[in-house]
């Protein structure tokens, strides 16, 4: 519990900066909708019929001429990508920073098991991601409220719930990388997140890549899918949760077996 709280405290500034930047950006973009609304009506029909481009962004499923559709297509991209990058940054730093910053000799000589250290850090990551999602959700709700039009609340919560799991999965992969690296694998973590995002765009356009929906967590956290189908993809969410558990187990196994540098 001490280590869990310690990690939460060390990361609180980073959480606030990321969550407020993304949240305020989303809030501002929602407020911009009014000035775009007139032209949105004209272009929404055109956008919905642009083949691969529309499919990639989900504009063939929801109408961006409505505030909810605009949120599901435009705002959710910023939320998902911003959240994914935050999770990648956080997960990739949590364990490797100890060896990179030469604090591993302080931490690993305390009466804590390596499993205990990793579980405390993972729990801190999960809480930070949850708080990120909560802050951005609050900003989004504030934006809708200012616009005087609330979205389908169940769908909004479904999307943010799926986005939380998506970020947790990206965080878990990066946490595993962090557990086996001596220096923070920030570049690899950010690259992996962008790759997953691009893979999600591509698999919606290229039928041969459909199998990739089991690889990229951005697929099950797609707001356009959730708002158009009024449901989240439960089987893929289950797979995502399983992936998180698998990556955590791999991190525990590998970290327990490896040498810790000073």
């Amino acid at each position, binding site marked *: 519990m001490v*280590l869990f709280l310690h990690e939460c405290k060390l990361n609180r500034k980073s959480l606030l900066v990321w969550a407020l930047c993304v949240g305020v950006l989303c809030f501002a973009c929602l407020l911009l909708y009014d000035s775009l609304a007139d032209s949105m009506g004209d272009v929404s029909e055109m956008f919905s019929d642009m083949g691969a481009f529309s499919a990639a962004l989900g504009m063939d499923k929801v109408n961006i001429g409505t505030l909810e559709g605009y949120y599901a297509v435009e705002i959710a991209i910023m939320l998902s990508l911003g959240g994914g990058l935050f999770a990648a940054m956080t997960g990739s730093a949590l364990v490797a920073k100890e060896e990179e910053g*030469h604090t*591993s*000799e302080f931490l*690993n*000589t*305390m009466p*804590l098991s390596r499993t205990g250290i990793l579980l405390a850090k993972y729990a801190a990551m999960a809480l930070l991601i949850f708080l990120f999602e909560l802050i951005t959700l609050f900003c989004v709700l504030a934006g809708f409220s200012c616009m005087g039009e609330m979205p389908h609340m169940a769908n909004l919560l479904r999307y943010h719930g799926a986005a939380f799991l998506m970020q947790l999965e990206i965080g878990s992969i990066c946490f595993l990388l962090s557990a086996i690296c001596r220096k923070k694998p920030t570049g690899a973590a950010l690259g992996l997140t962008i790759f997953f995002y691009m893979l999600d765009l591509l698999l919606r356009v290229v039928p041969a890549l459909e199998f990739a929906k089991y690889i990229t967590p951005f697929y099950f956290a797609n707001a356009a899918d959730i708002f158009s189908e009024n449901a989240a993809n439960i089987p893929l969410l289950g797979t995502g949760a399983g992936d998180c558990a698998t990556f955590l187990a791999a991190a525990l196994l590998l970290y327990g077996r490896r*040498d*810790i540098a000073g």
Partner: protein
Amino acid sequence: MSEKAIEIYGLTKSYGKKRGVRDISLVVEKGDVFGFLGPNGAGKSTTIRCLLGMLHFEAGEISILGRRTGEAQREILRNIGYMPSEVMFYPSMTAEKVIKLAADLRGMDCGTEAARLCDRLLVDGKKRISELSLGNRKKVSIVCAMQHKPALLILDEPTSGLDPLMQEAFFELLMEANHAGATCFLSSHVLTEVRQYCKHAAVIRDGSLVRVDTVESLSKSTLRKVKLSGVSGAPALSGIEEVRKEQGGVSFSYSGDMQKLLTAILALSPKDVLIEEPSLEEMFMQFYEKGEEKNGVVSA
């Protein structure tokens, strides 16, 4: 209850093709102040990290305070205070928060002892770690290592970076802890420290133990430094090395039978003779250069 604080048998650890330590065996009794001497890269820190469970080793067995490492690691670490050679903490935290964090991670309230140690070492608790020099970080590390009154203190080059006054204060604290029953395992380059404070010492070179003995015995040897005045050369005797011609005489080191040396010196009829024991530093260099491979368990 075991009377041994540290037991190492046949410890071998390598880093791929790079050498680590090879077949290290030594025993440190409870209540001892044990010096661990060796040059950079000799394997001191590797041995210590194996003791602390940070490194997995290929062969050997380590027991600390009667418990085998790996089996009861948390319990072992609960009774150890460790000070690394390259001290670093979380840069954004203040010194007092780091000290509190160390106590909290141990699940102990060490406020009174921490305050006493900070007072003795003049630790400025309000400063951030990023603002502290190496010496000041070392002082914070000493408090973290000692505040929970551990049964075993493992200190890796503890005085590097400390000014002479703080070194004195540190050794006072160390001796107080030792008199209160703590065992101290002290890795150091500074031979005067080892001679002054340690009861036993081990010398490690190229990953192998060269010698383990009392500091008193380590300082004693058949090796003698000899200076002769009024002669042009050293006597022709086996055991004579490092012959140097000096103004008006010659100096050399000799290891062997003293009667033979005296007879050989008398035959040269020198004006003056100076025979002295080598310093611990010179002994230390001798161990490094020649190396006496030891086999089996070496008990201090």
